């Protein structure tokens, strides 16, 4: 078997993050406790920045998509743009984590795992065959199980870690089974080759292929937390440390959806009549479940978890559109969605640290007036989730609807519209609590404000800038997304 040539440049984002992860682990051993938090965080941040730079270079230096490393990974702009979104989320997640009172003896490992999870994600979006797909998926999943459970003094954190491990492994197992069925039916690992085999051997109605395809969609839906595969999401999002939740809600979802789009479009064009309907149904289920369940939540993290289920629904509409506009819509949607999601969890983290308890609709009462920056930011993030104008969320939804309509699925537009109308109730409930109710007793600590957290606030402001900026600067962003989408075989 010939040794494949390795394009190190194509792998550079993963490698940068792996190096950062290794350095952070070393810091856990070599750096004295006082400086460990700072050094580990800086290392992880540097890793994300370096990965972002490499991903940016990959984007600009890849005018045509090429398959690398024995066709196991695809070097293209589609993955490069997804990588930029992922490492951006990672960087903000580091910023949110910095003030978290994680135990000092775990802090090095925490950042090392965060960087390693990022490495797995940026690797996964490049995956071009079934092996790299599964490898990448497990790589980042395992790296995330541990940070979920890192607060070992908290039962809820342990529970979240365990639940994520069990359900996540089940999802991976389903996916793996699906992959093996596809391999069994076609004898091919590489996405393009699978597509060709399906075509040439007339396997379109083959039982193995159909079962495999269904399992792949289910497995990826677990990761994207799309209904009905979302059961773990509220518990894990609620129990995990808030910075980890923030990272998961933005990056894991991005990876799962981008990957789903790539697999379905490159490996299963022959089955497109089937999977577009399946994905559309999952999208509608996610919109229904996510939005309705979010209505009754009091705990803010739980509410945001259900809201993330509904957003998986919106993005799956873009996948189901199966056209150029859909791919663009998905990539664009991820930008304001990721920013708003990270930002919202950052605000929750800030409130959590201030109060020392779980954040609910009740104990954010009056927060908007007490903490103007965080309050206004949270307000804008909620508007972005709800897709109101002056936030990129509006443009994202608009593109998703346009893509669905262009694909001839007007009923998906209607489903999205109904979902949005329901979602307004709970998003505005947060604003209402923050600005229109006054707490009966002042909840924030007496005797002055807690110390300002410059890093956290900077993260929030960065998210705010992206959320609002993506409304005004649509053209450059959509241009990036267009060039990326053009490299998919749509």
């Amino acid at each position, binding site marked *: 078997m010939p040794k494949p040539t390795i394009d190190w440049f194509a792998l550079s984002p993963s490698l940068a993050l792996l190096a950062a992860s290794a350095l952070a682990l070393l810091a856990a051993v070599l750096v004295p406790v006082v400086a460990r938090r700072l050094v580990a965080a800086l290392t992880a941040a540097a890793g994300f920045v370096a990965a972002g730079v490499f991903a940016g270079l990959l984007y600009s230096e890849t005018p045509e998509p090429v398959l690398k490393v024995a066709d196991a990974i695809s070097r293209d702009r589609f993955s490069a743009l997804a990588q930029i979104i992922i490492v951006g989320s990672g960087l903000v997640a580091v910023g949110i984590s910095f003030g978290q009172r994680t135990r000092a003896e775990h802090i090095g490992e925490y950042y090392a795992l965060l960087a390693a999870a990022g490495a797995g994600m940026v690797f996964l979006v490049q995956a071009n065959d079934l092996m790299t797909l599964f490898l990448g998926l497990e790589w980042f999943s395992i790296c995330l199980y541990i940070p979920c459970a890192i607060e070992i003094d908290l039962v809820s954190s342990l529970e979240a870690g365990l639940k994520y491990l069990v359900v996540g492994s089940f999802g991976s197992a389903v996916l793996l089974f699906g992959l093996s069925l596809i391999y069994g039916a076609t004898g091919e690992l590489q996405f393009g080759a699978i597509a060709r085999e399906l075509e040439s051997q007339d396997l379109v109605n083959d039982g193995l292929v159909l079962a495999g395809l269904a399992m792949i969609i289910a497995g990826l839906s677990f990761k994207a937390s799309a209904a009905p595969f979302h059961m773990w999401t509220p518990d894990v999002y609620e129990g995990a440390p808030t910075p980890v939740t923030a990272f998961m809600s933005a990056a894991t979802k991005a990876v799962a959806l981008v990957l789903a789009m790539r697999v379905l479009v490159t490996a299963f064009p022959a089955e497109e009549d089937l999977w577009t309907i399946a994905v559309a149904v999952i999208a509608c289920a996610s919109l229904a479940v996510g939005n309705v369940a979010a209505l009754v939540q009091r705990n803010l993290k739980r509410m945001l978890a259900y809201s993330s289920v509904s957003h998986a629904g919106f993005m799956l509409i873009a996948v189901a559109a199966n056209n150029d506009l859909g791919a*663009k819509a998905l990539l664009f949607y991820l930008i304001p969605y990721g920013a708003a999601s990270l930002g919202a969890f950052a605000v929750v983290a800030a409130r959590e640290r201030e109060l020392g308890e779980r954040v609910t609709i009740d104990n954010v009462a009056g927060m908007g*007036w007490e903490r103007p920056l965080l309050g206004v930011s949270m307000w804008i993030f909620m*508007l972005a989730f709800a897709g*109101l*104008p*002056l936030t990129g969320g*509006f*443009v994202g939804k*608009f*593109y998703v*609807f*346009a893509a669905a*309509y*262009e694909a001839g699925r*007007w009923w998906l*537009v*209607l489903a999205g*519209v109904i979902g*949005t*109308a329901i979602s*307004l*109730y709970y998003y*505005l409930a947060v*604003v*209402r609590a923050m*600005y*229109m*109710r006054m707490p009966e007793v002042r909840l924030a600590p007496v005797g002055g404000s807690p110390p300002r957290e410059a890093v956290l606030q900077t993260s929030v402001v960065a998210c705010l800038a992206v959320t609002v900026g993506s409304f005004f600067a*649509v*053209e450059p962003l*959509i241009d990036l997304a*267009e060039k990326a989408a053009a490299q998919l075989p749509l």
Partner: protein
Amino acid sequence: MNDWLATILIALPLAAALVVWLLPWSTQAAASLALLAALAEVGFWINALTRFDFGAGELQFEQQRAWFDDLGVSYHVGFSGISLWLVGMTVVVLAAAIAYAFWAGRDRPRAYFGLMLFLTGAVVGVFTAQDLLVFYVFFEAMLIPLYVLVGVWGGAGRLTATIKFVIYTMAGSLLMLAAIVVLGVQQGSFDLATASSDNDWVFLGFVVAFAVKAPLFPLHGWLPDAYRESSPEVAAVLSGVVSKAAGYGFLAIAVAKFPGPASDLQPLVLAIASAGLVYGSIVAFRAPDLRGVIAYSSLAQMSLITIGVFALNDLGSTGAVLQMVNHGLVSGVLFLIAGVVERRAATGDFARLGGMARGRPALATILMTTGVIALAVPGSTAFAGEFLILAGVFSEGWGWALVGAVAIVLAAMYMLRLISAVLHGQVGASVPDEALDLRPGELAVIAPLVACLLALSVWPAAVTDHLPF
């Protein structure tokens, strides 16, 4: 093609809002700055009025910049003859509202005045947008400040009021978004100039959104709460200005861009509007309080305006525009007067009001004048507007005109009831003897609006002869 005036009229208040929010102004400074910006806005509008070429009959002060090209969306604004008069009404009423808030004093002034300015920019944007998506953006952007203005500074029932208001309006406008997506993707462009369709469903998407915003019967569930719970100047803006976004939408989008569906569904819309007209007038006549009467009269007036628009002829449309301007000013004055009365009597209940005319000549004169104009006494500008609307719809069927004529009689009844319940009769239990007449500050806010109404009464042709119909 590249005149900044429309953009200035939109951006000036938005920029002023940011300045008010971000810098640490004192109460007085924030309010003065807001008022200054609002007056500058009026100044720019007068500039637009003097420069507007009424003979040309096309868009003016136009500006267009690509926003996202691939779907054919662009930031495109400009003035039509209709926009010009509605923007004028908007900037005048909002300046009065801001001045009233300045005079009355509001908690958290920076947030409050910033939001009022933001609202001004958004409404002007709605009236000048020439791209469907830009129109939608401004249409929604109005909702954000209103939500907070009602929810934070409103009365005791404000939370319920805001929820109803937002859910109703958003449900309507999301249908409009779906319709815009369909229309725009079909056409490959979202520009208003080229938009046109024969699809009844797309047309209905727009109509429902506007019908909620106006509101039209039976989609008016949010109206009584929102108008009762807001502070008086916000209620004035809501009923006077924001509802006109719906009237404008009916006229400039629903009817102008969907000639086929509009004439197919004309009887349906006319029937709904007529029902609303009679219903609103009767409920206004039975309403127990000041704001109830104004709120439901607003419902009735918006129905009448819709009837004018859906007469689908020049006469009706002309009347509708004039009546939109009239009602904006009338409603503004009446809600501010309601605020004035509530400040003195701490209630708007007719049962506890009365006899306020004695010793309070300014209040009595202002309320009487506005009331008489509102009930469309011949010679008043409202008479001109309603006459044109009825004449327009008469050519579509005498039955519609008959309903309208009946409603005008009802309007006289509820207006006279309002006037007499506040001004005449026994001195009400809640009216203290020492309650003052209109203070100079209040008079300075309200009198200009009444002066505009009187000027229009003298010369309604100022509007009707200067429209593109």
